[in-house]
């Protein structure tokens, strides 16, 4: 399986990364090198093998559903690139 320029552009769009036309060719060959390398997994027989999603040898812990933190709006907003009162400000989304 080899990626073409259109697929590279589609992935970049999905990943929300702007790529210039000049970058597409480089990315194409780099991504294809990586995908070419991982192709070797095709030769492994995984019949009946469960996927392993986590590194922890345990079930995920549950906790009581209650508010344990909060009321720190000012500290959170201190890092905001743009804010209006207690909100993160972004470009207009709805016309």
């Amino acid at each position: 399986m080899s990626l073409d320029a259109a697929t590279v552009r589609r992935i970049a769009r999905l990943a929300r990364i702007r790529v210039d036309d000049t970058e597409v060719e480089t990315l194409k060959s780099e991504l294809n090198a990586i995908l070419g390398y991982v192709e070797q997994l095709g030769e492994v027989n995984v019949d009946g093998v469960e996927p392993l999603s986590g590194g922890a040898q345990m079930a995920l812990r549950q906790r009581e559903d209650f508010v344990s933190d909060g009321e720190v709006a000012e500290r959170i907003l201190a890092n905001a690139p743009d804010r209006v009162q207690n909100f993160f400000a972004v470009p207009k989304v709805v016309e």
Partner: protein
Amino acid sequence: MSIFDLTIAGAAKKLAAKEISAVELTTAYNEAVAALNPRLNAYITTTPDLALEQAKAADTRIAAGEATALTGIPIAMKDLFCTEGVRTTAASKILEPFIPPYESTVSAKLKAAGAVMLGKANLDEFAMGSSNITSGYGPVENPWKRVSDPDAKLVPGGSSGGSAAAVAARIALAATGTDTGGSIRQPAAFTGLAGIKPTYGRCSRWGIVAFASSLDQAGPMARNVEDCAILLNAMAGFDEKDSTSAQREVPDFTQALNRGVKGLRIGIPAEYRLEGTNPEILALWDKGIEWLKAQGAEIVDISLPHTKYGLAVYYIVAPAEASSNLARYDGVRFGKRVDGVDLIDMYERTRAAGFGAEVKRRIMIGTYVLSHGYYDAYYLKAQKVRNLILRDFTNAFAKVDAILTPTAPSAAFGLGEKMDDPVTMYLNDVFTVPASLAGVPAMSIPAGLNAEGLPLGLQVIGKHFDEETVFAVSAAIENAAGFSALPELRAK
């Protein structure tokens, strides 16, 4: 003897005996950082004033008889740990303005123990790399030099390259690192240090900038095995803020150091004897086997049949998790923003400007392998092979107590080498990635020098939550190796 020759254990004794003060120790290190960091670039941010303040508090605590083994010990904090009020960049331009309003659990534990923070150590951007060259704040110089070419700049390994260079050059007494596929062990090997990646779940991930959440683990990097044990004692422990944190007692790891290896069964995996591996590294591995045998260990040949697929699994799983984790950098709530004509354009421009080339590549690979139509072929398949790799270890550990391998397939390489394509660089992690995928603890110990005078490391892999055996075996290798070489470029 210089103040920089002291280990953590040695410095703690002198501090307790009032032969030196924490302020003296920290002042010496602050000055060494100021003198050497402009060249090495091991720190992205230095915090000399904070360090001095913490040292003063440490002296008060020592005087009151309330010191821990780390009170007054000056360390470097990998710039992946969020530190309250101190800029945390993950070596990415996208986090250039980020000042965390909270402290990571691991750094908070070290702070509570009285450790002094000299600064935030450089790393590969978002911990993605094996050479520290992907940092948005410039590469790090390895203080070690080739005998035949002392002017050539070598990499310190990665991703914890700044931590490694800082400790090796003695501009930190020890450092924190994080390890996703080898990021503590490979740089430790490249710089003549000891470093352990504990069992997944042993140290809390809370407040560590996430790369691949099912693999990321914090751990210590230090001059010797004992110092690593002292640090891990303070860093480890259950944290309810990390859903994969292990609810287990933390033993005193220093108690395991003198256990010896008599009667232990040490596995030697045939699959790590890769074709084309540097003969010096294979010879060192053989020496390690002899050292353990001489101390009474039983050497057992084992097989980890899926080893060769480790890297391929890793380079699907880690980018997949990264593409999801790094979705948060959108220019809205924190970090850098680049304005656009609309919201999507703002996202795309922000991420294009904020992320470096390697991070973009990995996000895109991750996006692709998780995308509709490719998920089963790539991601699900990789997770299944990951399970086979875990099974390899489970089967091996039915027969042996620990496994000995080389840490990396080469010694430190030159800045600019191995850049032909991303896969060449990825091969650095071939010996370290399998333990990460299985979640088992693994430690690198400096064991010798190559013909160029560069350090080489051996890796000890243990069972889940059996860091104690890892420490015991590592200490035995350390004793036998008697590694005492130092880089010429260091604080003296």
